[in-house]
């Protein structure tokens, strides 16, 4: 029934091979783009097919084994896939968004040197991400995990001739690697601990069935889950391993949209959801996750307030929203976390693609006017809503969603997270307060972006002012689809408290994901306790916060545009700290990067050049020295040689006689 699940990752892999190996020969941009889009679209079609099949299937958990992989002692690993409601949603999310963004890239990347290379990498990424979400055991997931890290490196460093881009690619990969180390440690510890209890497995279904063998809340589960969480912080850009994501904006905008907004960065959240049984057994870790998530949400939001590059603001916004997802996971609101993952994918991808559309238009105008101004700097924008109406409307819809305005999608998902952070048996009001404040900042900086870009007077240089075009259909079509999803996607997860008011609307998502999460939540008594009226109160507070944030942004950037300047002048040190990302990169450089470089230099100059080379040269010296001494035996006189022969014979005879 589900035997051909392997087709889902296969199609983009084939697309990768074709474009990768033959791309240079094909040369026709339309064909290359079509191959890539068709590959991932086929994957989407198959995903839809299996998803529909799963909807009607009473049995929701299906495993498909494709081939044996590792058999070593007690370790038996197969190439296997797991289709359940969670992975079903994820394959739709990944393949659907990848299709839209690949389509968008056909127009966006027009004229680029490595056109085929871009599309082959995008397909490779889709392959790896699909392997990650469909993986039936931790190693297949890890193959995808590493694969998306690789593609992230390849695509961030797409403009590899630009030093900042290749540096950003390296940074992303290395920081990710630190996280991957944590993931592997967690995996090995888990495998070993379960093995000690007699169950040697890394298959997710078997892990879920057997976690109860480990001590609830004990050291082992805490260590395992913390190590896995370290992996998640690397992949999903949380404190302390988030520094790569803002730099990752060096990559082309479709890359930022697909990888760093909608898919790869959600891998950490997905992993926690996948192993929710394990995580629920370690309340300490969950609290850590919630704290880190909330802290990251607030921290990144503060940095986003002061950035001028449109993509940087969105990058910090992504880090911040991922913080919300981890906050949700940490307080046990698994469904809410996945819900926010989905809505975030919709509106963040739309925001990134929209910003790409704006940058595309600005670039076109500057090119036309032979200017070198930065097309990504918001201080060069303004008033673009008249020039790019479709981009404006879609962007506005997504911004309303991220700010949490009812009844856009972001309102439902973010609100559920905030409610759970307060009301969950594993929640705390401080977590709610931090999350709420971050929501205020989110609404503020997102609308700051909208007002600076689309409203007010046009600050673009005069020569370029009137030449900013709306983007072609191939770019605006994905924007429209995503904006629609961002607007109406929230209806998937209407909370019961609201659904009651509108004629018993069910929480579709919660029911759908119940087979994945319900058991854990039931077992560990994780639920949001509070009356409906309390919930309404919190909802109203969330809305009020969003409106206040938008209001402040309107006052500062529309009504009194000189206010930001006065604010910066009044608090110069604070502004500088926030603008410079709280100097975290410099801190890491001093604490980690430079000492490592120094260690490398020491190892090179002292250990390798002196010690190892010394050893090798020393051997040669010994040989030469002994040669220098021994050559005096070569006198050239036959008599001497004959004498030594005679002496030798005598010695041998003596030895034989004595023995």
């Amino acid at each position, binding site marked *: 029934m589900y035997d051909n699940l392997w087709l889902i990752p296969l199609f983009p892999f084939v697309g990768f091979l074709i474009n990768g190996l033959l791309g240079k020969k094909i040369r026709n941009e339309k064909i290359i783009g079509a191959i890539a889009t068709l590959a991932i679209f086929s994957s989407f079609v198959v995903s839809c097919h299996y998803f529909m099949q799963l909807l009607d299937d009473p049995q929701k958990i299906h495993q498909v084994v494709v081939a044996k992989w590792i058999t070593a002692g007690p370790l038996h690993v197969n190439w296997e896939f797991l289709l359940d409601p969670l992975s079903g949603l994820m394959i739709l999310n990944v393949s659907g968004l990848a299709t839209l963004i690949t389509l968008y890239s056909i127009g966006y990347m027009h004229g680029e040197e490595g056109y085929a290379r871009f599309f082959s990498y995008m397909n490779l990424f889709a392959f790896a991400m699909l392997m990650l979400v469909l993986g039936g055991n931790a190693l297949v997931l890890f193959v995808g995990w590493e694969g998306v890290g690789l593609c992230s490196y390849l695509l961030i460093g797409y403009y590899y001739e630009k030093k900042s881009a290749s540096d950003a690619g390296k940074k992303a990969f290395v920081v990710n690697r630190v996280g991957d180390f944590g993931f592997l440690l967690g995996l090995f510890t888990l495998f070993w601990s379960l093995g000690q209890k007699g169950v040697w497995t890394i298959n997710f279904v078997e892990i879920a069935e057997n976690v109860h063998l480990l001590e609830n809340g004990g050291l082992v589960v805490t260590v395992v889950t913390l190590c896995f969480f370290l992996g998640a912080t690397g992949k999903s850009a949380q404190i302390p391993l988030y520094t790569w994501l803002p730099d990752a904006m060096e990559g082309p905008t479709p890359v930022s949209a697909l990888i760093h907004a909608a898919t790869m960065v959600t891998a950490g959240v997905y992993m926690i959801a996948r192993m929710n049984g394990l995580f629920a057994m370690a309340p300490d870790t969950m609290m850590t996750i919630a704290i880190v998530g909330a802290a990251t949400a607030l921290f990144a939001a503060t940095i986003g307030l002061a950035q001028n590059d449109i993509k940087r603001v969105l990058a910090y916004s992504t880090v911040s929203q991922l913080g919300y997802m981890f906050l949700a996971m940490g307080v046990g609101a698994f469904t809410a976390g996945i819900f926010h993952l989905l809505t975030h994918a919709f509106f963040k991808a739309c925001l990134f693609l929209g910003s790409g559309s704006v940058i595309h238009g600005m670039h076109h105008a500057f090119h036309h006017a032979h200017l070198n101004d930065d097309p990504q700097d918001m201080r060069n924008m303004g008033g673009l809503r008249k020039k790019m109406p479709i981009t404006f409307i879609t962007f506005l819809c997504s911004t309303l969603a991220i700010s949490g305005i009812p009844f856009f999608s972001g309102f439902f998902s973010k609100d559920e997270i905030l409610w759970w952070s307060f009301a969950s048996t594993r929640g705390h009001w401080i977590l709610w307060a931090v999350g709420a404040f971050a929501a205020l900042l989110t609404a503020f900086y997102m609308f700051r972006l909208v007002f600076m870009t689309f409203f007010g007077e046009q600050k673009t240089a005069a020569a370029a002012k009137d030449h900013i075009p709306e983007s072609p259909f191939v770019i605006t079509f994905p924007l429209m689809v995503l904006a629609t999803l961002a607007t109406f996607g929230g209806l998937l997860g209407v909370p019961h408290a609201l659904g009651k008011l509108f004629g018993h609307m069910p929480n579709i998502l919660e029911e759908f994901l119940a087979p994945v999460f319900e058991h854990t939540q039931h077992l560990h008594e994780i639920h949001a306790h509070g009356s409906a009226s309390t919930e309404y109160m919190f909802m109203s507070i969330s809305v009020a916060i969003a409106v206040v944030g938008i209001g402040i942004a309107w006052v500062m950037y529309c009504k009194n545009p000189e206010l930001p300047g006065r604010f910066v002048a009044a608090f110069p040190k604070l502004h500088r700290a926030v603008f410079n990302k709280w100097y975290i990169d410099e801190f890491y450089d001093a604490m980690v990067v430079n000492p490592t470089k120094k260690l490398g230099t020491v190892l090179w100059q002292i250990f390798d050049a002196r010690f190892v080379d010394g050893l090798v040269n020393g051997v040669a010296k010994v040989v030469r020295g002994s040669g220098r001494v021994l*050559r*005096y035996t*070569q*006198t*050239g*006189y*036959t*008599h001497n040689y*004959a*004498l030594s022969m*005679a002496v030798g014979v005598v010695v041998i005879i003596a030895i034989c006689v004595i023995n």
Partner: protein
Amino acid sequence: MITLTHYMVLSALLFTLGTIGVLTRKNAIVVFMCVELMLNAVNLTFIALSSHLGNMDGQIFVFFIMTVAAAEAAVGLALMIAFFRNRESIDVEDFSLLKW
């Protein structure tokens, strides 16, 4: 009575004389003669023991040694002639190019 011991001692003496000659003499031809002396001493040993043990093998082996000695003498003398043509001398101390 002339016993085996006499033969063995004579043979040993001849061998030693030959060895000393090889190690000491300057003239290459004399060195060759001493080598022949050593070979013949060994021949004597073989004959004596063969007679003493009543086994023909020793005497057969003597034939081998004599053949080898003859061939070796021919080759060695040809070598000497080649050396002399090069260096106008057959003093072994002059053949020392392969030194350090």
